[in-house]
């Protein structure tokens, strides 16, 4: 594909990431603030009260899928772009590009699997409280 198209998709993915990753970051990192607004479900990392409900929610599952795809594309294109900016042989750059594509597909596949498996077949609630 033409470089301009790949680059434009990178910019587009970046724009979408601002929206979706912004949302994701607010949920994960602004839970105290969300609490003041009466929107927080408590500790964002608590399995029973936060993680499990997010897994079951269709909205969150969709957001995670979108985030995964555009995040991987934007990030790996950025990495490829840096590799292309090195003074190394063209062949090495092409090989690195293919390698990054494979990494993206592999990580993406595992990510999609965990997101969908978690949504369709969520694990049971935690009974014994461990550690933490």
């Amino acid at each position, binding site marked *: 594909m033409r470089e301009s198209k790949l680059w434009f998709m990178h910019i587009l993915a970046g724009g979408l990431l601002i929206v979706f990753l912004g949302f994701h970051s607010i949920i994960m990192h602004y839970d105290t603030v969300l609490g003041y607004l009466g929107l927080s479900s408590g500790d964002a990392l608590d*399995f029973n009260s936060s993680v499990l409900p997010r897994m079951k929610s269709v909205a969150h599952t969709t957001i995670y899928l979108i985030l995964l795809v555009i995040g991987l594309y934007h990030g790996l294109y950025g990495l490829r772009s840096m590799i292309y900016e090195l003074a190394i042989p063209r062949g090495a750059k092409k090989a690195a590009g293919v390698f990054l594509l494979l990494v993206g597909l592999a990580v993406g596949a595992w990510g999609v699997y965990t997101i969908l498996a978690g949504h369709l077949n969520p694990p049971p609630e935690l009974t014994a409280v461990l550690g933490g």
Partner: protein
Amino acid sequence: MAKKNDLGIRGWFYAGRYGPQRYAYTIQRITGLSIIVYLLIHVFVTGSKIFGGETWNRVVIDGLVGNPVLHIGEFLLFMAVLIHGVNGFRLMLVELGFFLGKPIRNIYPYETCLDRNRGFLYICGVVIAALAAVGVGDFFKFI
């Protein structure tokens, strides 16, 4: 016979006596690199949720949040995402040719698009600082 005199990758990280946009470029690069490395790990770490609450608690709560170094690292990553995102918003518009003004007659002292874009850059800085302040408060639990 001539001698090579290239900046090399040193130029990516060392912005020297250039202006704020040149520094923004360096910061965007460093934050971007750290975020993509994190993302690849993040997919596997959070993927542990499908193995149930015990695994989640062992990997995320004890392993990550419980480890002070990794926990601080996670906060730095939040900062990296914030900076990369807000500055990325500026770059997205700028690299498509917006917010740079129009071609002008170049009369000394010359004005460049960097001058016309500086306000935007500083606004981004203020937005980053404000959101970071909230993030810091939330992270260290003093708000």
